[in-house]
């Protein structure tokens, strides 16, 4: 005799993938708006390029795999991947960067592993890392915030830089990055890192023009935007609060310990929170339901591990920002974390469960 096992009949909420993805896309809007306000049109151009490229790549590979094209191509996952990638790119990177990155993310990282729900790595971050190690020059030429630029950067200038690498008036990327005083500006994280190697203290670095009054002109607001979007997602129950909380709390603890030991060589905790891709990573990348840990305990470890990696790479690594690398390394360890944090099944004792684990 066989029992037909169906899901509970009283469950009527049918969350479709596309609805969830749309919600997450809406939640990125405050951060994208802050990016647009402080850094100009560059990221919006890259987001559009990435979306087009991702959809074309998705169409191509779905037709190769003989899947249902209209359903899967517009489920929003490819678009979300493209948006996350477009957000993370330097605003004035050349056009082929976003096209190549999105195509790689969709074809290699997502679809070759079996499509949505089967990819072990976060596609957007894997695409970003591929770009970062392949094209270090283009991927590290970050544009300073608009208010510090000596050159007026209009929408057409931005387009022109992205497609021809010169503005309409003929300025190059190097000239855009140059401050009115004649020195090249970098991102706050990069500035702090370089200054530390030059023997300057954190307090001295904080006087740098790109950092402004708080933690970095523009960057603090972008992170605040993603924080707001993330809280909205938690409020809507689209993501679990454990991973972001664990990540941010652990990052706070690690940087706080370092800061109390040696305030001259370690940036403050808030500096870590509101710079780079911290909030974007915490709420939009680490919470990826496919490539992250699944149980509550597992998510705590997952977030803490990501925080440790972010802190260590930011402090000692070769790159100023670490979010993408940390995410990929955590994705890799997620199955192992899941294996050791399997929750107790109802009706089973703890010991029995542990025994099952060793036998498995």
């Amino acid at each position, binding site marked *: 005799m066989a029992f037909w096992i169906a899901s509970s009949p009283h469950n009527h909420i049918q969350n479709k993938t596309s609805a969830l993805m749309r919600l997450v896309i809406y939640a990125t809007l405050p951060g994208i708006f802050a990016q647009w306000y402080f850094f100009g049109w560059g990221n919006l151009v890259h987001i559009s390029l990435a979306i087009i490229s991702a959809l074309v790549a998705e169409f191509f590979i779905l037709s190769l795999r003989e899947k249902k094209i209209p359903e899967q191509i517009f489920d929003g996952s490819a678009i979300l991947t493209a948006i996350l990638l477009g957000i993370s790119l330097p605003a004035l990177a050349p056009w082929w960067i976003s096209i190549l990155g999105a195509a790689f993310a969709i074809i290699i990282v997502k679809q070759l592993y079996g499509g949505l729900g089967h990819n072990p790595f976060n596609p957007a971050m894997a695409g970003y890392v591929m770009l970062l*190690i392949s*094209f270090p020059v283009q991927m590290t030429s970050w544009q300073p915030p608009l208010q510090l630029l000596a050159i007026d950067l209009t929408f057409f200038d931005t387009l022109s830089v992205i497609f021809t690498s010169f503005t309409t008036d003929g300025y190059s990327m190097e000239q855009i990055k140059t401050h009115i005083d004649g020195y090249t500006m970098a991102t706050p994280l990069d500035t702090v890192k370089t200054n530390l190697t030059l023997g300057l203290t954190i307090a001295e670095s904080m006087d740098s023009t790109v950092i402004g009054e708080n933690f970095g002109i523009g960057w603090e607001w972008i992170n605040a935007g993603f924080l707001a979007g993330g809280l909205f997602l938690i409020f809507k129950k689209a993501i679990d609060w454990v991973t972001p909380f664990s990540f941010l709390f652990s990052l706070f603890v690690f940087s706080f310990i370092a800061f109390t030991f040696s305030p001259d060589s370690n940036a403050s905790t808030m500096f870590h929170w509101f710079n780079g891709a911290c909030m974007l990573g915490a709420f939009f990348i680490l919470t990826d339901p496919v490539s992250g840990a699944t149980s509550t305990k597992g998510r705590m470890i997952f977030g803490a591990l990501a925080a440790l990696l972010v802190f260590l790479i930011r402090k000692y690594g070769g790159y100023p920002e670490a979010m993408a690398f940390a995410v990929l390394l955590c994705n890799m360890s997620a199955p192992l974390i899941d294996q050791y944090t399997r929750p107790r099944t109802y009706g089973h004792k703890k010991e029995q469960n542990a025994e099952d684990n060793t036998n498995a």
Partner: protein
Amino acid sequence: MTNGAEYKELAWQGLWKNNPGLVQLLGLCPLLAVTTTITNALGLGIATLFVLICSNATVSLVRQWVPKEVRIPIFVLIIASFVTCVQLLMNAYTFVLYQSLGIFLPLIVTNCAIIGRAEAYASKNPVKQATFDGLMMGLGFLLVLFVLGAVREALGQGTLFDGAHLLMGEWARSLRIELYSVDSQFLLAVLPPGAFIAMGLFIAFKNAVDEKIKKSAPKKDAEAIERVRVNFDAS
């Protein structure tokens, strides 16, 4: 089995069906590490081919006198002596290539494709077949190296046969083809992860081709018992 068919089968096995690179996945370490350009790939591929032929022939020659218990050390000894020959030859005649191949040239000794063939085929078969097997397996390996090197070189720096004169002499300078010129290299193709990704795609491509061949092959109908139709009216 007639002699011709046997050689044909050996060639088919070495070049496609049981290709050491794509199917047996042997010798991946040099395969992935040195295939950044066609020249490097060819250099290592030819060296491996040479060692494989010689070691297969020698192993097959001495197969009657090698005790089973110590066969592996003896195979390794034979292979190592041929690798030393190749290494000294390349050191003498293609010095720059010798330097760019670096440690991977002496590491041919540990290439499992070679010892695999010695163990699986050469130690059980006569000299002629064993030598031919070595040639075909070596060619199969060389082919994979060549294609991988070509793809990585084309993607990574936009050229083909860059530095071919290091392997083939001054005339080969004219072989160099510049497909497109880039300001920045596509580093992924040059770095090891690119080799893994390209290799994976090749294996997928080979499997797809095999699948296609299998599908398009004429299906053998199950033998049905046919009744003889007897036409009574015709009598």
